[in-house]
């Protein structure tokens, strides 16, 4: 019994760590509608400032704390709100998630540019205890706390009490929540939504800064990655609080910490169960919570009643092109290919990049299916790719099945897993779906990948190239063409599906789920099919990637990479096959361009982050937007030429940057968008 109490008590300080971070997440979500995965990056800013001033420059604790937390914290929030999130108050929650992901990548690089990248050992907290021999430990009988833990406990208590009071008893709390629900309506009531939003961001950033400084001593060095890992684990506690209740989030965090302590205490330490469950508990908890917790299960995302004020998103630009223009575009694309392919074939290096770009484009097609067509954000595409890759690797090495067959088997396996996952998860929708898929990705990574029969254990499994129809694809050129062929087949498949019944159903569901149901479309079935197809495509890509590199290495499919894939594709354009291909190519080629121009390493993630910001304004994707603009531009000039040629016939209204084509165009016949 005393053992039980000890384990419970020992789990509490760690639970407070989770709780503090989770409270920060919940606070941000509640007051600004952003599920801020970049919270860790914000925490990192304050931690870096504190380290620099207190540890490197030997400032005393209090001035360093004031600067790092009380000044820099809200300052970061102010900047984020004024520059970015102010423009996103009416954007869908998922768009804000994407923006946060961009920040997650960009902010640490900005900090590193400022502070440099030298190692930062000897992290100190705010409790007046130093490292090594003066490490302050407080004993309460058998139970001990160190100074940083005491600070965390106190800070957590203060934050919880303060925030709960704020939301329950103050005006500003109510206003913040109102602005999140509908900024427009709030303004109609005479409240300055902008100012409220800014205060919200400053407040949540203050908590981020506090968390950063308090939790930095948990790690040997100050680094953004450490905080991000912590965030990801804390999401479960946030889900426990339903993403709204601060006290419940605190409870959730503590329960999580205690549960980890109990698992550590009672599971046999060398057992497989311990090995699987202890590291993955937060993710398993998150997954189960999202699926089974009633208040989350039935929660529909709060939709702004005035959202209808926004014009509907425009249709695909390609569908509005005249036939002639479509052919012109296609011929142009063929010309580009005709130039690009020999260039790629000219050197082994470009061949490697080219092949990987083609494979990545194939994987990105899976995102076109699930996000572009079904309108859902799935953050576990890398996991499906991994399933494809590991299935391929295991079948090849254990059963010596022909490689091409194993790749197809990998795709099938991923599709099956996708369908199974979709059943409990699709009902969630919006940000909860995104979180559930992310939780799945993390679970897979921490529980299944380390197992020998999945990820191959300490030695990743080698995967040879396919050999069939008399061709040995160990030849890189042959393999490149094989990948192109596969990409072409999958693209055509995706186009057919998009134009087919399921594609139509998904279009309808995206347009209006209610109306679609009212005509008899079964939303769950259509989406499960889309999810499964998307998983299968990703699995196919994963298998190809494994055989391309020659080994199935888990690092190629890690869950954060999956996040970035999604962000890249939705930013560039998730509605069309073209968007996927361009994203896949951009991933590699532009990298090269930057290398040759000689731009500093750190700017790439920063640019990526910036790009992600555009998603809210252009949910159809930057490329689609550009396509539409250029189409309008070309169309306008064609009209002008026509008008000069046939003065008797007014060619209809010219609208600069027109969203819809003019009725006089006789050619808006349905031509396939590629």
């Amino acid at each position: 019994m005393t053992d039980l109490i000890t384990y419970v008590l020992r789990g509490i300080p760690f639970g407070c760590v989770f709780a503090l971070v989770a409270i920060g997440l919940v606070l941000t979500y509640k007051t600004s509608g952003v599920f801020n995965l970049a919270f860790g990056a914000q925490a990192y800013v304050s931690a870096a400032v504190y380290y620099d001033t207190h540890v490197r420059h030997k400032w005393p604790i209090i001035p360093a704390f004031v600067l790092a937390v009380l000044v820099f914290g809200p300052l970061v929030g102010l900047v984020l709100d004024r520059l970015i999130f102010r423009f996103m108050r009416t954007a869908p929650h998922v768009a804000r998630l994407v923006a946060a992901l961009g920040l997650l990548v960009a902010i640490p690089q900005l900090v590193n540019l400022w502070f440099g990248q030298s190692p930062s050992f000897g992290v100190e907290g705010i409790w007046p205890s130093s490292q090594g021999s003066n490490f302050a430990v407080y004993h309460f009988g058998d139970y001990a706390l160190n100074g940083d833990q005491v600070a965390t406990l106190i800070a957590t208590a203060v934050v919880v009490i303060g925030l709960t009071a704020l939301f329950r008893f103050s005006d500003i709390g109510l206003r913040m929540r109102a602005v999140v629900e509908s900024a427009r309506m709030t303004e109609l009531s005479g409240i300055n939504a902008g100012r409220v939003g800014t205060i919200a961001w400053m407040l949540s950033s203050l908590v981020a800064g506090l968390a950063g400084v308090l939790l930095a001593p948990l790690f040997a060095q100050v680094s953004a990655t450490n905080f991000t890992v912590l965030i990801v684990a804390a999401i479960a506690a946030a889900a426990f609080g339903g993403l709204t209740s601060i006290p419940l989030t605190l409870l959730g965090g503590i329960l999580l910490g205690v549960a980890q302590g109990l698992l550590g205490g009672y599971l046999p330490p060398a057992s497989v169960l311990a090995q699987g469950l202890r590291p993955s508990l937060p993710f398993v908890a998150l997954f189960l919570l999202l699926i089974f917790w009633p208040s989350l299960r039935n929660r529909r995302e709060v939709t702004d009643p005035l959202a209808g004020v926004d014009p509907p998103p425009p249709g695909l630009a390609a569908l509005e092109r005249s036939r002639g223009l479509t052919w012109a575009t296609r011929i142009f694309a063929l010309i580009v290919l005709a130039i690009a392919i020999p260039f790629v074939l000219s050197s082994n290096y470009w061949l490697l990049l080219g092949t990987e770009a083609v494979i990545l484009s194939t994987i990105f097609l899976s995102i076109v299916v699930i996000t572009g067509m079904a309108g859902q954000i799935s953050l576990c595409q890398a996991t499906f790719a991994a399933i494809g890759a590991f299935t391929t690797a295991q079948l090849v090495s254990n059963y010596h099945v022909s490689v091409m067959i194993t790749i197809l088997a990998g795709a099938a396996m991923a599709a099956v897993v996708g369908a199974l996952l979709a059943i409990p998860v699709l009902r969630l929708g919006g940000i909860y779906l995104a979180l559930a898929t992310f939780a799945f990705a993390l679970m897979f990574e921490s529980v299944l990948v380390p197992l020998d029969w999945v990820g191959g254990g300490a030695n990743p499994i080698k995967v040879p190239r396919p050999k069939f129809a008399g061709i040995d694809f160990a030849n890189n050129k042959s393999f490149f063409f094989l990948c192109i062929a596969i990409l072409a087949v999958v693209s055509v498949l995706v186009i057919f599906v998009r134009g087919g019944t399921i594609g139509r159903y998904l279009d309808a569901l995206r347009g209006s789920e209610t109306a679609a149901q009212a005509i008899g479309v079964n939303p769950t079935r259509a989406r499960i099919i889309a999810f499964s197809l998307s998983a299968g495509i990703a699995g196919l890509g994963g298998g190809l990637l494994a055989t391309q590199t020659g080994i199935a290495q888990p690092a190629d499919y890690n869950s954060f990479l999956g996040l970035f894939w999604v962000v890249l594709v939705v930013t560039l354009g998730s509605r069309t096959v073209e968007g996927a291909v361009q994203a896949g190519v951009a991933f590699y080629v532009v990298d090269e361009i930057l290398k040759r121009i000689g731009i500093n390493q750190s700017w790439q993630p920063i640019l990526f982050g910036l790009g992600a910001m555009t998603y809210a304004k252009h949910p159809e994707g930057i490329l689609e937007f550009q396509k539409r603009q250029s189409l309008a531009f070309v169309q306008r000039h064609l009209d002008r030429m026509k008008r000069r040629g046939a003065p008797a016939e007014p060619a209809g209204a010219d609208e600069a940057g027109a969203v819809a084509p003019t009725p006089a165009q006789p050619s808006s016949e349905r031509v396939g968008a590629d």
Partner: protein
Amino acid sequence: MALLEARDISKRFAGITALDDVSLDVEAGEPVGLIGPNGAGKTTFFNCLLGLLRPDGGRVVFDGRNITRMPVYKRARLGFGRTFQRIELFSGMTVRDHLLVAERAHRGTASLWKDMLNLSRATTEEIEKADATLELLGLLDYANRPIESCGLGRGRLVEVGRALMTEPKLLLLDEPSSGLDRVETEELVTTLQSVQRERGTAILLVEHDVEMVQSFVSRLYVLDFGTLIASGTTAEVLGDATVRKAYLGEYV
């Protein structure tokens, strides 16, 4: 046995009783109206009939089957069609596409394999069927236009057409004349009347516009604060003093 029998439908939202034991019948092929002041619960009632909301009490029987717990899309397959007060169209699709997808959904034949092999393109029969409905609604000229280019009046008609493609036995129309001017409303009424005649569809109409209601429905229910306060033929109901006071004020 009426086509639609709703019995004792009740719905509460956190302390507010939106519907209190509302019962309503619609016979096959019959046009029925449901009127009442704003906030009376008309749309809530519709949503309960359609399955978008689950009533806290009562039952809905359609064509002899108890559909109270049936999911929305299944009810649609049984023969419900609906238009929406706040127009719900499928952006990015053309007018004809709206009808085509409804036709497909009605037949319920969705096969991924056929899709992948490009065997799911719209057949000539389907197109002809859609065009026939478009013609009935006067929308044939706009068949290929993207839905965003249609105004509200036309959009409403598209909604009606979409609903019709599912060959409904009962059409639920939620304030179809809202946002339409006099001319458009009259056109709508004419169209609805021909639909009802030619296809024998029962219609349950929620409306504000009393004149429209008068010219169209044979029976009327009146809802006020979630309770039915009157029901009967159009003439009876509109002549009833309670109704006039509750709904029409002192207007004669």
